[in-house]
């Protein structure tokens, strides 16, 4: 069953009325929006419009002194923008860095099935999570553990944003996501030995996030899917 979205700032009405829209609804596949602008390349990376980021930031703005977890390396532009926009606290949890300078920003090239994922934060203490494309590099078991941890630490109603590749071709190196402004992300690619990158289908994502709720998935022109999710509010959470 499909219900209309409360926020219509991102319009997909064209797709819903079109043949591709009907096919998308029947098959669970989605096509990029017609008004999706082409990514802009620059020496500093490719800038593209993000569909999920504005919603994520909007959700965070409605929270007093939000606490975020960023599952990527510390990126100055992101920290600055999040501080300016939200006045928040950000925990940097770079899952693939061991915290030493020698291993800085290096993706684990081994199988990540045994990657230990346990956050020190108390349950129900985090307002928002920026997953970026971390889940693409995890085995199903490790991804399940990460999602379970996110489900534990997120406050009821807490929001997360994740990015998944839909590109079958191998992507060399790894990628940093820099928030340019509230609507745009810059992708900076770095050459490095990386582990296998997994292709999660939309169904896989929904299954993986069974303890959370997927709100929106945006299939973008540059072969990525941006997904917004939240931790459901259960009876009793309101005290």
């Amino acid at each position, binding site marked *: *069953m*499909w*219900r*209309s*979205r*409360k*926020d219509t700032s991102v319009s*997909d009405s064209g*797709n*819903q009325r079109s043949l591709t829209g009907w096919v*998308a609804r029947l098959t669970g*596949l*989605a096509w*990029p929006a017609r008004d999706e602008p082409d990514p802009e390349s620059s020496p500093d990376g490719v800038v593209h419009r993000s569909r999920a980021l504005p*919603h*994520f930031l*909007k*959700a965070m*703005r*409605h*929270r*007093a*002194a939000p*606490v975020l977890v960023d599952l990527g390396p*510390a*990126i*100055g532009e992101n*920290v*600055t923008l*999040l*501080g300016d926009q939200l*006045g*928040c*606290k*950000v*925990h*940097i949890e770079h899952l693939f*860095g061991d*915290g030493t*300078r020698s291993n*800085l920003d290096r993706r684990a090239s081994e199988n990540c099935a045994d990657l230990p994922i346990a956050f020190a934060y*108390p349950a129900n*203490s985090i307002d928002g999570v920026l997953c970026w494309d971390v889940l693409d590099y995890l085995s199903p078991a490790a991804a399940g553990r990460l999602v379970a941890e996110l489900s534990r630490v997120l*406050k*009821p*109603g*807490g*929001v997360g944003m994740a990015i998944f590749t839909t590109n079958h071709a191998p992507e060399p190196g790894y990628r940093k996501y820099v928030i340019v402004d509230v609507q745009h992300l810059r992708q900076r690619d770095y050459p490095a030995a990386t582990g296998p990158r997994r292709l999660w289908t939309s169904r896989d994502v929904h299954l993986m996030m069974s303890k959370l*709720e*997927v*709100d*929106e*998935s*945006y*299939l973008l022109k540059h072969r990525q899917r941006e997904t*917004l999710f*939240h931790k459901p*509010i259960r009876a009793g*959470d*309101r005290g």
Partner: protein
Amino acid sequence: MAPEVSPAGRASGERGVALIGRSVVINGELNGSEDLTIEGHVDGKVELRDHTLTIGVDGRVKAHVFAKSVIVLGELVGNINASERVELRENGSVDGDVVAPRVAIAEGAHFRGSIDMQRKGQPAAGGAVPEARGPVALVSAEPRVGV
């Protein structure tokens, strides 16, 4: 303990800048009322409430730092409380939690910890779980795939 004042530091700027040289090792508490640059090793606590602390390229600091502004080009292990700004420059490294209204991290810097940029007047983070609220304007009742 009064840090060594570099004549070069005095000469280079109008205001005095104290310098802890490369060969200096300090264990203990360091207080001051002037800007300070650390190129040596400091282990303990650094307090420059109304001034700027610069940890130079060769500086190695293991301390809880209180200052108006903190600039890190070397290595710092410990928490930072800055009333104005923290700058982590290229190749600088911080392992610890930062509390400051403005934080700048350069490409190539290393940071591990948390960054608290909460504005004055905001309720403190990490306290009691507030009343649960749903995500704002992004929840449809059922999962969907769209574009």
